[in-house]
């Protein structure tokens, strides 16, 4: 075959018109609304200077908030993977009354404003709320504790897992399961050895999406957490508090830490999805 060295081209030729104008507009808009504003965080952090930046980032209150944010987000994401998988499984594999309704309502946490979710959950789980009342005799307090944060984060995160697992579960060829059954595998063995490995990439993606969403969540948590510094203060709230105290440098430094974490997560998700979609391909 004849290998030609061709000049570097950004775009392949196409008869479809309008690339220049649509691309130009999109890039301009993205630059003005996203890239420049987001870069402000790093620009301002750079102005602070590394020593002071480190001092802010490693202060006790910031570290405590990061610890709370990470631990509650992680726990919520784990719970979401378990129940998300369960819901996706039940919706895809079983028929029961009201299934369509449940399927249609799964996305409610995406659609419901977080402030509404926040006040609703707080009221439900406070000591005289519908659910809090039942838990109080058992000595379990939810609202204004880290458990409350987890509840809010489970609420806002579980559609991610359901919606990433569902299509994969649907696309698994039933013949594969039938083949496993013909070869003598029990139902559980089929699930564990055949289905679960297929679902794993989707589960991990769902976990990462729910986790990264939980880390940044503000509206629903701010009501239920009680916002006690060192105990139930999540990182986004700490940024907000610093801003209200006109501590712009402090707020920006913490925001920079959060942004870097978000970027790393985003990068990992992308790399992972790329890997997952290519791993069984013949190169």
């Amino acid at each position: 075959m004849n290998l030609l060295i061709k000049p570097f081209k950004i775009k392949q030729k196409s008869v479809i018109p309008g690339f220049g104008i649509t691309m130009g507009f999109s890039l301009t808009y993205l630059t003005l609304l996203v890239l420049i504003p987001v870069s402000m965080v790093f620009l301002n952090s750079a102005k602070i200077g590394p020593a002071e930046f480190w001092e802010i980032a490693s202060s006790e209150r910031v570290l405590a908030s990061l610890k709370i944010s990470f631990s509650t987000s992680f726990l919520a994401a784990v719970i979401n993977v378990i129940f998300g998988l369960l819901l996706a499984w039940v919706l895809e594999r079983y028929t029961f009354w009201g299934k369509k309704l449940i399927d249609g309502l799964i996305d409610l946490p995406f659609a419901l404003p977080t402030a509404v979710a926040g006040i609703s959950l707080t009221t439900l789980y406070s000591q005289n709320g519908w659910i809090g009342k039942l838990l109080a005799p058992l000595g379990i307090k939810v609202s204004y504790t880290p458990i409350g944060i987890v509840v809010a984060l489970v609420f806002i995160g579980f559609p991610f897992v359901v919606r990433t697992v569902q299509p994969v579960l649907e696309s698994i060829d039933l013949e594969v399961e039938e083949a496993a059954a013909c070869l003598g595998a029990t139902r559980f063995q089929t699930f564990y050895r055949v289905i679960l490995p297929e679902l794993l990439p989707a589960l991990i993606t769902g976990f990462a999406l729910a986790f990264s969403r939980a880390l940044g969540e503000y509206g629903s948590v701010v009501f239920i957490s009680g916002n006690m510094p060192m105990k139930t203060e999540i990182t986004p709230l700490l940024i907000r508090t610093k801003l209200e105290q006109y501590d712009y440098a402090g707020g920006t430094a913490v925001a920079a830490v959060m942004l870097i974490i978000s970027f790393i997560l985003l990068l990992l998700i992308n790399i992972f999805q790329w890997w997952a979609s290519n791993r069984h391909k013949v190169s």
Partner: protein
Amino acid sequence: MAGSIPIQIKTAKTTPAERRAVKGSKIVPVILTAIAILFFILMLIVPLISVFAKAFEQGANLYFASITDPIAWKAIKLTLITIAITVPINTVFGLTAAWAIAKFKFKGKNVLITFIDLPFSISPVVAGLIFVLLFSTSHGLLAPLLNAWGLKIIFAPPGIILATLFVTLPFVAREIIPLMEAQGTTEEEAALTLGASGWKTFWLVTLPNIKWALLYGIMLTAARSAGEFGAVSVVSGHIRGLTNTVPLHVEILYNEYKFSAAFAVASLLTLIALINLIVKNVAHWKIKQQSKI
């Protein structure tokens, strides 16, 4: 905040429920279904119902008084203005970005998609902060300019609109890109060979094919514009009757222990969310019908 998973394009086939591979025990499905339904009711239905229950706890009169209160009305008005501005702008952006990404092959496409997704992965508080850092009249990068011209963006409606534009930027694009990619370019090519201009091709061929996903994307943008809390809260300054949107008004009422009033206003936002879900399911169903060919 509300991320979005684009409507899945599914192909019709026998559902697994219709074709049981193995006759397993009948108890396991029942138990699993029961747990799933219980979780669903506890996590979703109860909070949903409680919004309306709390809203009407003190009677219908207080409910209507709360949502017709002049300050509530001002908040609703500001929210409507925000929607009226963000929806058209981000719809145009979504369409142009989707056209460039889905209909052409070019280098750096994935980077572009990542940038479009960026607002999803940034905490809403940080989304608010970045506009404070740019436009604050005391600390912002553009403070000298703004002060010279006497412009106020932060703690004023323009800041709210900017922050809302930022957080709702990905919705339309993310809904229509996968669909446009799946549809490919042959229908557009067919239109071009039949002599249609680029604009007519878009208007008569592309748009009708994506209208349901587009509608849902627009609906998501509108709902999110109405419900955005974190980012708006940072840039608004909570000036009653001036920079309060509906969710901020809910927060103020709640913090003042006016629970019924807070839930009354919150119920309006919940209704929008429910309408959103209905639109989504109709759109989903329509797209499925379309892709059955």
